[in-house]
């Protein structure tokens, strides 16, 4: 057997301070109340960060409000300079950021290095390009910024979600108070340092760390004009309720239970890759993950045996090893949720399969898993698991595939695998999902708008459409 020797990326490339305060008005403050952030692969404490209370959020919003007047008055070309500068610094420091992201989040270095960070830089470059062209974006002759944006982001793509939120906000002349997720605050704090390095005016970007309460203070703050949230549908509902009637503009990017539809004329080997990428990318911690595989019954056996063979080559382990395909689950709480839903899947009669794989003793781990014999009535076919767990369902005709794919309260993404172009177009047209991928999956690009139907949220991020949420 050809074994790959360990090939770990060096963690000494990035400096982590023993504690981090809040980043408000261009300065890191002292941390009073704090909480710990850990490496989910080892449960080792990485550092302590400040827990922002209502007064802290108040100060951050006030700083953003002060900065807004001069930031929004600058010509777009001037704002673009800062964004270009930020994008270049991110590229220059991407190795540090990739290691930091993998340490704090648990995702494999291969992904943070080759997917997350390149997309982060691309997002800043893309919106930098829009900053001086807003008049021509199709939102009226004199589109104006909204003011202070309160942004709350999730733990699955900490740095990328920060880029999706901050880049369009700054390009359009808004100022920002951003709250990173409780379990993954470090890349946002690193980004604060990038802002200083880029000499971004104080107060334009403020980072407040904390848990759910901090997020609530921020979105409920009366001086916030715009709320942008990415996370669970449950929290999204609470935010929609609290924002209702306040005049704040709101975008929500929430959960999903995407159907990945494989027709009998699909390119089988590439479809298998797409299924693997669809559900095991980032440990399945992806709102648009292809967590429901809909496979045409006539090729189901063949496809499943190929899929199992492929899954047996997935390498689960140390996120910093360059050969790791699947890293650690982000937190104990998330692991518990995945374990619980998987047990329910077994109890409800679905057949569970995982390739033989050794999991480390410490840290939070879950082997890549598929459930076959799943029906629409099973909870694992309806609820978002947000882990490396795939539910396999079958269909007989294209009409049945469409019906099953749409039979979910969500509508964020979907995939179609077929060699027949006419079939791809016909099916894509009928799927109620914000993104439909054809013969690929989990492909992202800053020029392409992203967002959902139904309980997957509203508003679009990315592309020209992503500007609209930040303009009046």
């Amino acid at each position: 057997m050809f074994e790959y020797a360990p090939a770990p990326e060096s963690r000494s490339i990035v400096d982590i301070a023993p504690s981090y305060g809040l980043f408000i008005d261009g300065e890191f403050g002292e941390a009073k109340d704090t909480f710990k952030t850990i490496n989910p692969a080892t449960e080792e404490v990485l550092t302590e960060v400040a827990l922002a209370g209502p007064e802290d959020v108040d100060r951050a919003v006030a700083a953003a409000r002060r900065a807004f007047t001069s930031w929004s008055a600058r010509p777009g070309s001037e704002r673009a300079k800062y964004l270009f500068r930020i994008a270049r610094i991110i590229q220059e420091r991407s190795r540090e950021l990739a290691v930091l992201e993998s340490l704090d989040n648990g995702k494999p270095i291969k992904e943070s290095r080759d997917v997350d960070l390149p997309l982060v830089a691309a997002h800043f470059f893309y919106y930098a390009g829009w900053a001086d062209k807003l008049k021509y974006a199709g939102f009226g002759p004199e589109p104006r910024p909204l003011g202070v944006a309160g942004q709350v982001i999730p733990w699955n793509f900490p740095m990328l979600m920060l880029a999706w939120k901050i880049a369009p906000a700054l390009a359009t002349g808004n100022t920002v108070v951003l709250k990173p997720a409780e379990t993954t605050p470090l890349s946002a704090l690193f980004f604060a340092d990038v802002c200083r390095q880029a000499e971004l005016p104080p107060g334009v970007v403020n980072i407040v760390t904390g848990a759910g309460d901090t997020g609530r203070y921020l979105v409920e703050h009366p001086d916030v004009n715009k709320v942008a949230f990415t996370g669970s549908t449950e929290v999204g509902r609470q935010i929609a309720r609290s924002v209702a009637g306040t005049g704040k503009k709101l975008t929500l990017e929430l959960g999903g239970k995407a159907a990945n539809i494989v027709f009998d004329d699909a390119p089988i080997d590439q479809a298998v890759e797409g299924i693997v990428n669809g559900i095991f990318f980032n440990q399945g911690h992806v709102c648009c993950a292809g967590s429901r595989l809909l496979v045409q019954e006539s090729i189901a056996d063949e496809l499943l045996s190929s899929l199992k063979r492929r899954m047996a080559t997935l390498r689960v382990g140390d996120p910093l090893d360059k050969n790791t395909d699947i890293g650690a689950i982000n937190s104990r709480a998330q692991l518990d949720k995945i374990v619980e839903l998987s047990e329910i899947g077994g109890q409800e009669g679905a057949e569970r399969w995982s390739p033989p794989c050794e999991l480390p003793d410490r840290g939070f781990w879950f082997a890549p898993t598929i459930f076959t014999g799943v029906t629409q009535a099973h909870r694992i076919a309806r609820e978002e698991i947000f882990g490396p767990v795939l539910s396999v369902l079958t269909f007989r005709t294209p009409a049945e595939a469409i019906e099953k794919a749409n039979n979910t309260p969500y509508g964020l993404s979907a995939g179609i695998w077929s060699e027949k172009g006419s079939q791809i177009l016909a099916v894509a047209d009928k799927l109620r999902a914000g993104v439909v991928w054809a013969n690929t999956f989990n492909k992202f690009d800053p020029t392409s708008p992203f967002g959902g139907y139904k309980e997957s949220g509203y508003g679009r991020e990315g592309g020209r459409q992503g500007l609209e949420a930040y303009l009046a």
Partner: protein
Amino acid sequence: MTATATSRLSGLPDSPADLRTFLHGLPGVDKVGIEARAAALGTRSVKTSSKAQAIDLAIRMVDLTTLEGADTPGKVRALSAKALRPDPADPTCPPVAAVCVYPAMVPTAAAVLAGSGVHLASVATAFPSGQAPLEVKLADTRDAVAGGADEIDMVISRGAFLAGDYGKVFDEIVAVKEAAGPAHLKVILETGELGTYDNVRRASWLAMLAGAHFIKTSTGKVDVNATLPVTLVMLEAVRDFRERYGRQVGVKPAGGIRTTKDAIKYLVMINETCGDDWLHPDWFRFGASSLLNDLLMQRTKLTTGHYAGPDYFTLD
């Protein structure tokens, strides 16, 4: 369709229409997807002990090749000597798998290699274009075998393949295999002239159904030779063929593989596509000339800790 293929496999005549139906019924290959997969496998990091293991395996898989109009007995003798002992300074360095020469040079190489365990391959069948009458190709093959070649690298008629005349390609392979007698048959698809990955997959199956022991990417004489995605399509084909018919077929990428880094990418691809069974010189070969010296340089670097200059390795 299974019945068709089985009868083809056992050499029974069948209608060209059945062959066409079978080959066009194979699942398609998505170009973007296969290239992305090959590129992703290329990012595997193979270091230290795995690298040493990979280098020795790659050396044992080399078909050390010279296919020039300027080849002389002297050149071929030197190359054959190098095949037996690639690194004169280090007796632990394994020999290569085979020497690959034109039929006219076979007796010269045979004299050096006899009894050594290093195979002697010869390109036959009007290599590289294959544009000659069948009788000429068969005579070419018989000559090479009579001269001492125990492996024959034949080319398919790309013209016939692209014209859709699969029956002709099939029958030629069967005839050459018969002419080759006990020698192992490697069938060169010349993937750089086939144009699409779908064609590469079809040509792979066609060659295997006709009885090929190995399928080989290229002659090394056209613009595009072995690539990772093309080899990946062929590895998937041999894997699926064995699953279906129980017979294992080898794969040989040839042309354009020059560095250790490249060679390791191929080994990773075998490892994660077909697994262990193909990680052996009986089932995978590199058709190459300059690759060997780069492997030797990297091998020396690993054992001594420093790089030696190119002058410390023999030219041929």
